[in-house]
C-alpha cells in the first residue's frame, strides 16, 4: 500500500485533511489517491443533517457527537458553509459550535466551502466522505449548507437524513411541498420551546399520515428539541434524536434498504465521476484555447444558439465515438 494511503487508513488527520484539500483544489494526484483508497471505504454509517440557515444544525451536530462518543464511536464531521459567488471566499463557522470536541482524538471535524455547488454540499463532499471512511470513522456526520426547499444532494451521500425545522416558517402548505419534506428519515422540530412548535408538529404528523414512505415501512419520527440553553432537557431531547437515528439505521439494515441506498449512492458516484471525466477536460481545453469566450460571444450576439454550440463541441471532442 502507498505510504500516504496507509497513514490515512491509520487515522492520520494531517494527511487526511490535506487530501481533502487536494480534492477541493482539484489537484490531479488526488484522484489517483482516492482510487487507491476506495477499497477501504464503505463501512461507515453516514448521517446527513440538513435544514434552513440558523435552524440549529451545527448545535445538533455537536450534541450528536457528545451522544455518540458516549458509545465510543469514532466520528468524522463534514460541515459545509457557502462560498461567496463574488469573491470566492467563505466564512466556515459551523465549527464554533463543536469546538469542545476539538481535542478529542476520536472526533475529526473538517469544514468545506460549497465552491459553487448548488445542491447543499460541495463537489468535494463525496470524496471527503471517502477519506473519512478510509480513516475508519464509525460514523460520519455531514452537515449541509443552510438550505431551502430543493438542495437535497445529501440523499446521494447519507444513509439517514435528519431534516431540521423550526417553527414560524409558514403554514401547512409548506409541509406538503416536494423536495426537502420528502427526504427526511427523521424530522427535528428544533427550538420547540418557541411559539408554533406544536402546530408544526401537527402539520408534519398529518403530512406523514399521507406519506407513501411512511406506509412502506418507516414512518419518519418527529423529535421535538427544546431550548439549547436549558442543558438538561436539551440533552434528553438530543439523546432521543440519537436513538431515533440508530433505530433508522437498524431498520435500513434489517429491511435491506441499506443496500438500496448504497446502490443509489453508487449510481450518483458514477454520475459525478463521469461528468467530471467528460465535462471538465472539455471545458478547461475550451477555456485554455479561448474558444469558450468566442462561443459565448456568438451566443450573446445571437449568431449562434447554445444547443448548436454544444453539438459542435460534442462533435469536436467525441468524433471517434460518433463515427462508430
Amino acid at each position, binding site marked *: 500500500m502507498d505510504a500516504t494511503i496507509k497513514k490515512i487508513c491509520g487515522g492520520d488527520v494531517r494527511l487526511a485533511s490535506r487530501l481533502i484539500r487536494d480534492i477541493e*483544489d482539484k489537484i*490531479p494526484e488526488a484522484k489517483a489517491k482516492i482510487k487507491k483508497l476506495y477499497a477501504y471505504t464503505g463501512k461507515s454509517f453516514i448521517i446527513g443533517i440538513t435544514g434552513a440557515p440558523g435552524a440549529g444544525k451545527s448545535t445538533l451536530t455537536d450534541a450528536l457527537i457528545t451522544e455518540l462518543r458516549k458509545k465510543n464511536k469514532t466520528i468524522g464531521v463534514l460541515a459545509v458553509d457557502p462560498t*461567496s459567488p463574488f469573491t470566492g*471566499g*467563505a*466564512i466556515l*463557522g459551523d465549527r464554533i459550535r463543536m469546538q469542545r470536541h476539538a*481535542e478529542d482524538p476520536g472526533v475529526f471535524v*473538517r*469544514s468545506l466551502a460549497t465552491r459553487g455547488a448548488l445542491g447543499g454540499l460541495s463537489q468535494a463532499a463525496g470524496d471527503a466522505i471517502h477519506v473519512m471512511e478510509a480513516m475508519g470513522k464509525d460514523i460520519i456526520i455531514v452537515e449541509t449548507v443552510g438550505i431551502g426547499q430543493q438542495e437535497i444532494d445529501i440523499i446521494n451521500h447519507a444513509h439517514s437524513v435528519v431534516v431540521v425545522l423550526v417553527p414560524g416558517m409558514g403554514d401547512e402548505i409548506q409541509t406538503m411541498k416536494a423536495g426537502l419534506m420528502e427526504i427526511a428519515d427523521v424530522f427535528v422540530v428544533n427550538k420547540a420551546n418557541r411559539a408554533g412548535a406544536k402546530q408544526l408538529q401537527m402539520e408534519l404528523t398529518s403530512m406523514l399520515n399521507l406519506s407513501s414512505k411512511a406506509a412502506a415501512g418507516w414512518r419518519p419520527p418527529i423529535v421535538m428539541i427544546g431550548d439549547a440553553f436549558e442543558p438538561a432537557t436539551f440533552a434528553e431531547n438530543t439523546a432521543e434524536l440519537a436513538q431515533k437515528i440508530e433505530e433508522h439505521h437498524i431498520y435500513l439494515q434489517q429491511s435491506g434498504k441499506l443496500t438500496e441506498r448504497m446502490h443509489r449512492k453508487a449510481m450518483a458516484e458514477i454520475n459525478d465521476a463521469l461528468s467530471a471525466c467528460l465535462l471538465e477536460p472539455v471545458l478547461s481545453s475550451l477555456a485554455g484555447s479561448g474558444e469558450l469566450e468566442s462561443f459565448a460571444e456568438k451566443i450573446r450576439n445571437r449568431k449562434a444558439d447554445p444547443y448548436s454550440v454544444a453539438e459542435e463541441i460534442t462533435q469536436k471532442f467525441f468524433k471517434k465515438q460518433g463515427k462508430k
Partner: protein
Amino acid sequence: MPERKIRVMVAKPGLDGHDRGARVLARCFRDAGFEVVYTGCHQTPEQIAAAAIQEDVDLVGLSCLSGAHRLLFPRVVELLREKGASDITVIGGGIIPEQDFSLLYDSGIKAIFTPGASLDSIVEWIKTNIKPH
C-alpha cells in the same frame, strides 16, 4: 491547473470575549477570497492547534485583547510544532505593547498587527507571505 485556495483560521485564545475585531477580520478575509475558519471565543491553545490541523489551514490569526498574549501566542506555535505542523504560519493582533514584540517574534509569531493597522495591509501581508500548502 486550478489555483490553490488560501485557507486561514481566525481564533481567540484565552478568557477574552472581545471578538468584534476578530469578526471584522474574518469578514475581510472572506472578501479577499480566502476560506476562513472561525472558531469563536474562549479557546485554549490546544483547541486552536487541533482545529488548525483538522482544517489544514495555511495561517492562524490570533486575536487577544486581554493581555495574555505573552503566554497564549507562543503556546499555539509550540503546539503546532509538537504536532509536526510548523508549516502553519501564526500571526497575532490585538492590544499588544511594543515591548512584547520581540518576545513574540522570537517565539515564532510571524507578524503582529495592532490597532490602527489597516485591513488592506493585513490582507496584503497574507497574500505576499502565504503560499498555500
